[in-house]
């Protein structure tokens, strides 16, 4: 199949998937708005992984991720009446999640808990499933992020960790596109400077066992 045909087919498939997703969102939004019995469970089932991901990546590996995710859904259901565009349910959910994560970060900052334990380290027991190299990288990353203000941290996480577009970030954080760009630039510069100052590799590589020297055949 020629490359442009493959591209066209992919485009059509993607468009169809997007339409199906939009239709599902619209249906779900209508069910939520009219208070249908199983709409809340459906919304949880559909969006909990997305929200959990945003919370987890924004706050860092933290035991309270589950609590914050539930809080987001509780508030989301309480305020579902403010959903103006049912077809934009996904954006509505994201902006809700971002708003509550922002409050949570500010609350933590105020209490000086941040995402770290009192020693300044990410509690090990929460990330035991992650290998040692990644754990080291995560510790470094969230220690750096803790040195940013809430807005900078969120923009940076949503862009570089969550992978959202600038437009999506602007919508979720209720900021202008220009502001998002400016905040991202500032946050990136600051993190880059901090990385430079700390030096060292991203991950601590384990020394690789030396390859056995092949014996020369006589």
């Amino acid at each position: 199949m020629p490359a442009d045909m493959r591209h066209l087919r992919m485009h059509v498939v993607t468009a169809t998937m997007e339409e199906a997703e939009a239709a599902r969102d619209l249906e779900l939004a209508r069910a939520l708005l009219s208070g249908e019995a199983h709409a809340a469970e459906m919304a949880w089932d559909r969006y909990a992984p997305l929200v959990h991901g945003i919370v987890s990546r924004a706050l860092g590996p933290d035991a309270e991720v589950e609590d914050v995710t539930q809080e987001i859904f509780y508030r989301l259901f309480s305020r579902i009446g403010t959903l103006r565009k049912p077809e934009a349910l996904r954006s509505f959910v994201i902006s809700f999640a971002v708003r509550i994560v922002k409050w949570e970060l500010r609350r933590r900052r105020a209490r000086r808990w941040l995402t770290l334990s009192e020693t300044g380290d990410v509690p090990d027991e929460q990330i035991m499933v992650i290998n040692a190299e990644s754990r080291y990288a995560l510790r470094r990353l969230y220690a750096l992020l803790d040195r940013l203000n809430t807005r900078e941290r969120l923009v940076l996480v949503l862009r570089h960790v969550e992978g959202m577009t600038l437009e999506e970030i602007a919508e979720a954080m209720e900021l202008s596109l220009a502001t998002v760009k400016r905040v991202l630039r500032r946050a990136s510069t600051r993190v880059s400077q901090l990385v430079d100052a700390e030096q060292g590799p991203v991950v601590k590589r384990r020394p690789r066992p030396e390859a056995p020297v092949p014996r020369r055949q006589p």
Partner: protein
Amino acid sequence: MTRHPTQDDDGPVRVLPGPADSDSNGNLDPRAVEMAQIARKTLGQMSPKLRARGIDALHRLVVRRQSIRRRIAFVTVAAAAGVAIAFGPRVLHSFNQEPAPPPLALIVEGGAVDASGVIRARAEAEPPALHFGDGTVIQLDQGTRGRLTTVDDRGARVAIDHGRARVDVVPKPHARWQIDAGPFVISVHGTVFSAEWDAASERLEVNLERGSVSVTGPVTNGPIAMRAGQSLIVKLRRSEVVLRDTDEQEHEAEAPALAPPPVRTRAVVASRPSRPARQARSWAMSLSAGDFDSILEEAERDIGHTLASRGTEDLAALADAARYRRHDDVARRALLAQRRRFPASPRAADAAFQLGRLDEKNGRGPAPALAWYERYLDEAPNGTYAAEALGRKMIAVEELHGAGAARSVAEQYVRRFPRGSYAGAARALRVER
């Protein structure tokens, strides 16, 4: 720009920025980018077990919060009686819903209800009667076409497509009974009455023996509240609404024979004040007897003097009589006089709503009507016509400024009157693109 797809969750495929895109990437150091990639890959995965545990925890959270809110609401209500407390949106309620209580038991005597709700008589000579578990009985007359629309634990809704039904509702708190008679809706709370709808001549007749009902529908201009011993006749084709005392009808029927007043067997008669002579009636009494013409005749003899000298009750009666008889100009002048002469009174607020309805009816466009509805809602936010005014406001805003502008009014309507007559339109408007 270098982009690579990722799929972290159930959402659609996303793209992450490549390091070369300085504008959208913010010039992040490649080592920090690498750390971010590790965070993306290692954090935020939600296992099915975690997802299931989360939904259970959310259930518990809702129960806990609602219990707290109820306690707060109870304390608040105790402190300030009469203040309504919203317990939260329906979605949370439905999320935390206990299994719905079973609907009222129903036995159909002399017939059956088919799958589509149509009430069918077993034999033509034996009209069916619906006996509900709470003691309520709805007896259809012979040849009546009726349907059982809904039945739940609080009551039922029965439609009379043509014919007559006698309704005997057992009063209970929170009961909800409705009879649809053609395009009219009769809302009842513990009452005995008969309702007849003649589809051919488009005529409704309601005779109320006991209790109270309200009737809404075309040409009623809002709900008509009926009290025991009254009879309501609405002739749609002539836009005629006559509400009168039942004993007056009987009296008139027997007058030619100069018979003595009929002996009433019901205690209702004893509880009602004796009816004064026709000439001594106030306009309000003439109005309740359906004698609109005499009010108009008297008022129009010197309308200027009438509007300047009559009291607030008479002005309201005149406005109603004029509306029922389609003397819209007189109605308008009476309503304006009511507002001018008795400002800040409940009747002045009601007049604002009626002026809005008149403006709509007379094709003055939605703008002046909208102004009146807003004024009414401002002056009487919880008034008799609040639901109707808000519903009409929503329609007017939509006509004037489009669906987008009307959505907030629709939200407000659904929040305040989730079962109101405009709730369907409001919900449709909320989800409209």
